[in-house]
């Protein structure tokens, strides 16, 4: 059995744990999260698993060689405004860029809504003299006296940590380095965040906002992570705890503590590992549709790669950290359906939350939710147990829909429930279209991976609407992200901004830039990953960002990765141009033939690739799948509610096939199979669904 790998995903409602052993066998545990101290949920999940396996916790953790942790602690600190008292030191004349926020409003029509509070209020923002120009040239000497004064003022104001962001420091960090030395004397350890070290990009607002957020998170998140590592160590864990970053890769906890801003998407980013696991069997073009209690997260893997962007917005704060491109819409099981004052049915984006949750949970919820509609229409089973202690009550669901939707619309309860499902399904279809079509991809070329507690109820409908012939349900759908963590590589991104003509820089210039980044990156990962390096294959993947002059957005071009510790070599300029044009055309539909090209950034991603574990291969099944029972289930407006076969996931064996229409009740999710679909049971309980017959049959919108 040993050694073990454990992944723990702390979400808002549940803490999920997934574990695999040397043979590729897996176990899961799910316990309620403790939002006052998330580490308690981690400990509880480990204890729950040890109990299930009847072995002592110390033995379980002692035999664990890889422990990966994803957590919403950074996210919640941002969303709940519980960050530290952060000071900002910046250039004279520009005290307020952080609070001006470039005037960006997420929804301009909602103009009565205030901006979220600024992370570093004005009295904690101090300016100093000295100026660097856009070419990195010093145009005004650093005013040392003003630095001393700024530090004194921030000490007096009681700043817990400090961010430093001077104009054009991405082009020349000389002033920042000198000021940082002074700040670090007063705020030792990780408590000073320096923009040119953390996120050397052009754009003072995004660079400064990211640096301030990091400084605001360090005292909160850093201490949490260190405490968790200590507790797990005391419980018997000998290996290093790895933390999942927003970029979809992990990093040892010691390295994460000083850069907590890179953890704000820590949980959802596990989708990279989760999709990577299915890549060998399902191909590299996957779209995950992860539907939980409150939201639907959609992520694309194209050609085996999940796109990582540098622009994340969390709670209205702009963070320029590498983050997996996840598109989220308010369409989950707990999403509430309402009828407005003039008779229009609306589903979402508001949710009923973990408490009270859907009316069917019997915890005081009285509003109709998507889960209530699923239950009323037979897609979920009356009396089924979900998330441990909750038993679904169809009577309560029916009553909520009758009172809040059916009666105001003068329609039957089933009809109202069907309306709720059609609207929420359409929102999911539009979400998948947004992240594929909007980014130049054709959804019909992808396989849909329906995950989360509720994704598999919508997979058939979404796949059909977008012309996807195949979709699948991972066996671990309900702990998708925790399982993904077990398949996540170490990752660290390094980049360096430029603003130069591609032809002027040339291959030789790029080689110098890459060498510089490689030396810096290799130094960093060698020290940060030293305890883990022996277990992984090191790889350095270079990229460049290019754009036409005058544009604000760049297109990233990836170069061939290099294994081991060699520095990558740049390709010919001509190849770069062609590759840029190919990608640009796909995104924007046209190019500027022979247009001037600017290199705006050079980057290097270091990956520590994990050795892949064997997957349990299914033996051909000897018997066919047998349904557990039959019940009426609503199969879409064109089909009504025929009586269909209902299977129990636990009864299915790898290699078996079954035909729709059907419902499959798995441990952590329920699958709805359309009338024209064929299901194949794979290893690890994965289900692959293929549409066989014409589009006339099956689930329709």
């Amino acid at each position, binding site marked *: 059995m040993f050694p073990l790998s454990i992944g723990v995903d702390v979400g808002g409602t549940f803490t999920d744990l997934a574990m695999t052993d040397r043979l590729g066998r897996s176990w899961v545990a799910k316990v309620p999260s403790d939002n006052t101290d998330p580490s308690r949920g981690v400990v509880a999940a480990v204890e729950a698993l040890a109990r299930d396996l009847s072995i002592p916790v110390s033995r379980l953790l002692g035999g664990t060689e890889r422990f990966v942790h994803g957590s919403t602690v950074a996210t919640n600190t941002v969303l709940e405004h519980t960050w530290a008292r952060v000071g900002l030191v910046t250039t004279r*004349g*520009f*005290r*307020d*860029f952080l*609070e*001006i926020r*470039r*005037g*960006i*409003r997420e*929804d*301009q*029509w909602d*103009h*009565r*809504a*205030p901006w979220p509070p600024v992370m570093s*209020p*004005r*009295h904690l923002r101090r300016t100093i003299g000295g100026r660097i120009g*856009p070419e990195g040239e010093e*145009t005004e000497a650093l005013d040392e006296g003003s630095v001393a004064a700024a530090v004194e003022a921030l000490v007096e104001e009681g700043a817990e940590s400090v961010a430093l962001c001077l*104009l*054009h420091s*991405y082009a020349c960090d000389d002033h920042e380095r000198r000021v940082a030395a002074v700040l670090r004397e007063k705020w030792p350890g990780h408590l000073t965040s320096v923009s040119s070290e953390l996120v050397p990009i*052009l*754009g*003072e*607002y*995004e660079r400064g906002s990211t640096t301030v957020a990091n400084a605001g998170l360090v005292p909160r998140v850093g201490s949490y992570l260190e405490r968790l590592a200590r507790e797990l160590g005391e419980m018997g864990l000998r290996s290093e705890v790895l933390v999942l970053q927003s970029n979809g890769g992990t990093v040892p906890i010691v390295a994460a503590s000083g850069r907590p801003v890179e953890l704000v998407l820590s949980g959802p980013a596990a989708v990279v590992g989760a999709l990577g696991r299915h890549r060998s069997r399902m191909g590299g073009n996957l779209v995950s549709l992860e539907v939980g209690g409150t939201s639907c997260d959609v992520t694309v893997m194209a050609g085996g790669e999940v796109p990582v962007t540098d622009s994340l917005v969390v709670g209205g704060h702009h963070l320029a950290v590498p983050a997996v491109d996840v598109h989220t819409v308010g369409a989950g099981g707990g999403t509430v359906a309402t009828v*407005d*004052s*003039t*008779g*229009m*049915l*609306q589903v979402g984006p508001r949710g009923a939350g973990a408490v009270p949750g859907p009316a069917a949970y019997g915890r005081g919820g009285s509003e109709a939710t998507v889960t209530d509609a699923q239950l009323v229409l037979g897609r979920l089973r009356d009396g089924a147990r979900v998330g441990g202690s909750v038993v679904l009550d169809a009577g309560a669901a029916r009553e909520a829909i009758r009172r809040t939707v059916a009666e105001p*619309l003068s*329609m039957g309860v089933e009809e109202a429930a069907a*309306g709720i499902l*059609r*609207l929420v399904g*359409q*929102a999911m279809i*539009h979400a998948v*279209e*947004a992240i594929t*079509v*909007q980014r*130049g991809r054709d959804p019909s070329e992808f396989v849909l991976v329906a995950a989360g507690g509720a994704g598999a109820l919508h997979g058939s409908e979404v796949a059909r609407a977008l012309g996807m012939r195949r979709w699948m349900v991972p066996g671990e759908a309900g702990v998708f992200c925790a399982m993904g963590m077990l398949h996540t590589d170490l990752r660290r991104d390094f980049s360096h901004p430029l*603003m130069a003509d591609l032809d002027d820089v040339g291959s030789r210039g790029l080689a110098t830039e890459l060498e510089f980044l490689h030396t810096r990156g290799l130094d960093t990962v060698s020290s940060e990953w030293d305890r883990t390096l022996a277990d992984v294959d090191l790889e350095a993947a270079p990229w460049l960002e290019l754009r036409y002059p*005058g*544009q*604000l*957005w760049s297109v990233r071009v990836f170069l061939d990765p290099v294994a081991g510790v060699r520095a990558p070599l740049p390709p010919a300029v001509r190849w770069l141009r062609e590759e840029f044009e190919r990608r640009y055309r796909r*995104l*924007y*539909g*046209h190019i500027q033939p022979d247009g001037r090209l600017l290199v705006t950034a050079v980057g290097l991603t270091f990956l520590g690739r994990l050795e892949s574990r064997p997957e349990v291969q299914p033996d051909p099944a000897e018997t066919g799948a047998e349904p557990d029972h039959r019940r009426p289930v609503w199969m879409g407006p064109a089909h009504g509610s025929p009586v269909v076969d209902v299977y129990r996931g636990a009864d299915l064996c790898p290699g078996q096939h079954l035909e729709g229409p059907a419902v499959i009740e798995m441990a952590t999710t329920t699958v709805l199979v359309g009338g024209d679909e064929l299901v194949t049971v794979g290893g690890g309980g994965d289900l692959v669904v293929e549409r066989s017959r014409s589009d006339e049959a099956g689930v329709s919108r």
Partner: protein
Amino acid sequence: MTAGVDPVAVALMQARLDHLCRHMGWVMTRTARSPIFSQSHDFSCFATDPEGTLVSTADGIPIHTGGGGFAVRAILRDFGHELASGDVYLLNDPYTAGGNHLPDWVVARPVFHRGGLVGFCCNRAHQSDIGGGAAGTYNPEATEIYHEGIRLPPLKLVQAGEMRRDLWNLLMVNTRTPELLDGDLRAMLGSTEIGAARMEELAATEGPDRCRELFTAICEHADRRFRAELAELPDGVWRAEEFWTDDCIGPHESRLVLTLTIEGERITVDFTGTSPQVRGFKNSSWVNTWSAVSMALAAFLPPDLPRNEGTFRAVEMIAPEGTILNARPPAAMTMNTVIPAHEIIHLVWRCLSRADPDRALAGWGKNLFGVTSGEWQGRPFVLYHWNAAAGGGATTDRDGFNQIGHLIALGGLNLPNVEFTEATYPVRFRRQEFRTDGGGAGEFRGGTGIEYQADVLVPAQWSFRGEGLGPPSGHGEAGGEAGAGGEMFLEPLDPDGRPTGEVIEAPRYGIRHLGPVRVTARSPGGGGVGDPARRDPRLTMADERNGIVTPGTAGSDH
């Protein structure tokens, strides 16, 4: 709901139409050539029924709200008898074609299913140059529409799927930037093509008659929602005025007057009393005035209010011909989507704020920055001084935004980073910080406005559009005070980059040719809402500590 119409089907259709418009927007953003589209989103995609009634405006900038139907109805008027599948129409003229102002061109594509007209998919977008007396569509010295660019009545740009080459060439020789216009027009055509394909699919799945029924039901729902909102407001008559002291050409006094009447489920917006049209380019067309009124109403009401043509059915607008707000040809009017749109929104908000002080909205500062253009490193450049933008007005829930984009976009226009602008243009910024005591005092105070200073390093043409210069322009509401007024002056620089001592006052409108100069501006603050004495003392203390107001004055200095 209309009897017999399935409410679920109506909600589904609304979501599909909104998605269709957003899809057109993605195509536009991805394929247009000018940064004005990919970065500033200065365009709107919309869908109408066969009569030109707007059914969705989900992708769009606020000042375009409610105006799209006029363009389609102008096409129906001129070509209604010969509309055919594969045709695409183009127009811009505010006097003859349902346009708002000349730079905004509308591409409209009729959608057919089995020979029957289902509706129109359209895109209204601001072009980078359309000829006229000044590059870049804004000519502050224009006194006739002929000085502002090419006028397009409804034109059949594409016939039966074939581009009309002669017409295309005519357009291309009437712009200073044909390569941009060519790319942007093609992007507009492409976006409406995608929209049309989706609308045809809706007609095929739902059936054209049912589509029609659902379109009608969508507008009727919006109408009911709006009337329900009106019912929440008291009946009454309110009056508000704004004043101008110049007409872009020289000193000239004019008034903009609104009498707003709410009577049950009707609202009348009557601009009678507004001064005659002016010489300069800040006259408004009927369509632009209507759009600004629609936007102002929608922005006062909850953000989930539907925004289609049904929404504004209960609104009657009166704007006498020959006045600033419904000018007769050949009045110049390119400025209208900013000025007087800003004043129109202020007038509507002033009246509604008095009708319902619990939702009062104060005025936003009017912008004072202009545009600098010239040549640098062998290439032409056009630099907008966005970083000098004004402060916004307070609401009953929050203070005004200290610096924000135009009111007409409800702030939806993003300000560039100083670093980006310095790396791209011959300019060095010296300051962009909140003004002290700039925001109008109130229970919620106005946005502060900005202390702005920048050196433009090369000789350049300065085009001024400074409506916000001078007296306060962000009025207070419900006992709140007005924000501080705007100031701007220029100082020529010597070869070492130091001011020579000469000071040039910035004109409100006009064109100047200047050598390297330092520009210093204080952008106007927004107005406050509510009695300053009622302000939460903790907020006042925070403002004092943050240097936003001078201690002990509550910011009531100006």
